[in-house]
């Protein structure tokens, strides 16, 4: 047995200064040799503790073993028996705080690059041009409506279809995928990967109805009257938060949702070939420090901005974005203005933003979130000259479904109350999961919620 290699095989990436000017994928993925080398690092420990870190309980050591043995169809089968969206998860899951954090090798060195291997397996299948189709259970004759086609909805729909139920997804936008399409940029998650995995879900017999704005086109109650036996709400957290400070409605100030939707879903980076435009200007300030802020800043750079700032009220250690995304942004030349918080926006006589007047901040005692509370330094105001501002402070659930559905319990934060284990809401035959229950979180936690809800819905339907 060779000595344990404590370093993982690195994944090739586009050079920072090159990639900062194109929308192609940043991380290029392992080739066969790299994947084999990384798979061979896995010691196949009996504890299999990586699985405990996976919200959808992928049999991680088994698929890695199949990769090591060069049995790729088997690797695909193992992976997809638990995870219908591996190409997506391999790219956007925060593995460092999940499966890789619980990897046995992590105690001694770099954990197995599980996410990279997952992506390798998914991309291998994609290159084959043909998707394996899992065996479907005998039709049960039961119908389930899934509201929203983001990670929670797609996962719930796929699992329910595999279990033999007839599933319809209702999607408000013109393309399926939810935040995977409108939010996460092409260079982090290519849209053809998302659409291939959506097509996989369709291939299980799931009917995806686009342009269906539940709460408007039909309410949840009306859908139930149409003969559905159960409903899963995976409507996400689509409502943007603003700072509520003077000047925020000036021209040139976007919510991150709008900036990213224009850029990603509507492909404004290809304007005028695509009809939807987006404004970028020379200097862009993105307010916020999460993954969405990093995505917005990196999009702005690729759209042609010369200087892009992240304006964040705490310090670097508190940045909520994934470490890897912060590093990517830094490498590409994003300028971090930390301990800085806007007081107001300044406009010109045409109504366009030209400046962000900011306070310097300092950190006090930890607040409810456990992070040190940012405090304004009085008299520290200064102005950052900007052409465009993107507000990336986070999102809350869109009230369209909660407010039009009788009998749901909704919290003050606008989230739907659902059982943590099963996703069951207080309303008969209605489940919910993902960001609509937790508030903005990760793709994989939404998928985990979709999976648990699907199991609970299945149990319910079999008892009918």
């Amino acid at each position: 047995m060779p000595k344990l290699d404590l370093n993982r095989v690195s994944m090739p990436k586009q050079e920072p200064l090159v990639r900062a000017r194109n929308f192609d994928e940043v991380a290029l993925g392992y080739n066969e040799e790299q994947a084999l080398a990384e798979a061979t690092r896995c010691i196949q420990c009996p504890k299999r503790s990586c699985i405990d870190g996976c919200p959808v309980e992928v049999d991680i050591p088994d698929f890695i073993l199949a990769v090591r043995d060069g049995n790729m169809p088997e690797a695909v089968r193992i992976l997809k028996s638990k995870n219908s969206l591996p190409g997506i998860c391999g790219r956007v899951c925060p593995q460092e705080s999940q499966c890789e954090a619980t990897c046995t090798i992590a105690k001694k060195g770099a954990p197995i690059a599980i996410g990279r291997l997952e992506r390798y397996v998914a991309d291998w299948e994609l290159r084959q041009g043909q998707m394996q189709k899992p065996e479907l259970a005998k039709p049960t004759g039961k119908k389930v409506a899934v509201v929203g086609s983001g990670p929670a909805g797609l996962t719930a729909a796929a699992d329910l279809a595999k279990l033999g139920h007839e599933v319809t997804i209702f999607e408000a936008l013109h393309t399926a995928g939810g935040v995977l399409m409108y939010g996460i940029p092409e260079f982090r998650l290519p849209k053809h990967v998302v659409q291939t995995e959506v097509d996989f879900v369709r291939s299980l017999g799931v009917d995806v109805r686009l342009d269906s704005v539940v709460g408007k086109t039909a309410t949840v109650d009306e859908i139930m009257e149409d003969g559905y036996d159960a409903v899963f709400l995976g409507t996400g957290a689509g409502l943007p938060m603003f700072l509520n400070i003077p000047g925020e409605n000036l021209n040139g100030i976007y919510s991150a949702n709008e900036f990213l939707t224009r850029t990603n879903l509507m492909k404004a980076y290809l304007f005028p070939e695509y009809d939807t435009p987006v404004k970028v200007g020379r200097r862009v300030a993105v307010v916020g420090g999460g993954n969405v802020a990093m995505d917005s800043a990196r999009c702005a750079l690729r759209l042609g901005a010369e200087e892009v700032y992240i304006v964040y009220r705490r310090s670097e250690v508190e940045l909520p974005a994934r470490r890897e995304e912060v590093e990517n942004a830094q490498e590409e030349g994003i300028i971090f203005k930390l301990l800085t918080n806007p007081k107001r926006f300044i406009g010109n006589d045409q109504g366009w933003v030209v400046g962000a007047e900011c306070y310097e901040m300092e950190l006090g005692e930890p607040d409810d979130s456990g992070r040190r509370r940012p405090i304004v330094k009085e008299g520290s105001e200064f102005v950052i000259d900007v052409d465009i501002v993107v507000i990336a402070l986070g999102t809350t659930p869109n009230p369209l479904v909660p407010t039009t559905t009788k009998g749901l319990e909704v919290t003050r934060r606008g989230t739907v109350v659902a059982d943590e284990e099963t996703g069951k809401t207080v309303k008969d035959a209605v489940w919910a999961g993902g960001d609509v229950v937790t508030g903005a979180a990760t793709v994989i936690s939404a998928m985990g919620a979709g999976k648990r809800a699907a199991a609970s819905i299945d149990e319910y339907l079999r008892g009918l």
Partner: protein
Amino acid sequence: MYKIMLREDLVPSIHLFKVEAPAVARKAQAGQFVVLRVDEKGERIPLTVADWDREEGSITIVFMEVGATTRKLAQLKAGDYIANFAGPLGLPTHIDNFGTVVCVGGGFAVAPIVPIARSMKEAGNRVLSIMGARNKDLLFWEDRLRAVSDELIVTTDDGSYGRKALVTEPLKELLEGERKIDRVIAIGPTVMMKFCAKTTEPFGIKTIVSLNPIMVDGTGMCGCCRVEVGGQTKFTCVDGPDFDGHQVDWDLLFTRQRIYLDEEKKALERWEQMSHA
């Protein structure tokens, strides 16, 4: 894909499409809108519903050719398909028996005022309507609006048909007249709605306008359509499109409608080059 069941050219630059969209038709009410996308590379644009037929499963839209997207839309014929058509979005116009209601429609917005006037009439109101256009060649649906109104005044800016006036003149006269006016609904170009609201303000008569900012998703997700009403930021797509005209920050609306002027010009030039080629 949504089939165009019928096309009518109301005037050379204003067109009517009846679109097969049963799910939208089932729920549509006066004052609501749809968001459509002409084709796979298209932008999402909002259009107020002009009519619906629940049995036939159709929605009628009326649009004027102004930019690249509406010109592209105007190329479609009956039997062609629109890529996406979502709705009905926004809140319906508040319909009640107010007493006497004045309905004002300007330009191609005569189309959405008709179902509102009809609903107001059905709710028991006396409906006094005013419709206006720049000239005679841009007028349409006089018969339809007359059929759902107790009285109708037609104006043109140049006097080529009806009364030579802006719609605000007869509106002011109605407010000054003997009859008590309980509510005014004004839909049309932003500048028209602003001046209707300014006209009614001194009389203290509630005036509802239907705002038309730029939108993307139309479901409250992006905030592109934010306006200020009574000092508060509102999303037109979910909080409106109807608002109290006396509370609207009109200058902000005008400014935000101009965000993409350069891009709109570029897209139009590109469209013209392509349609010539």
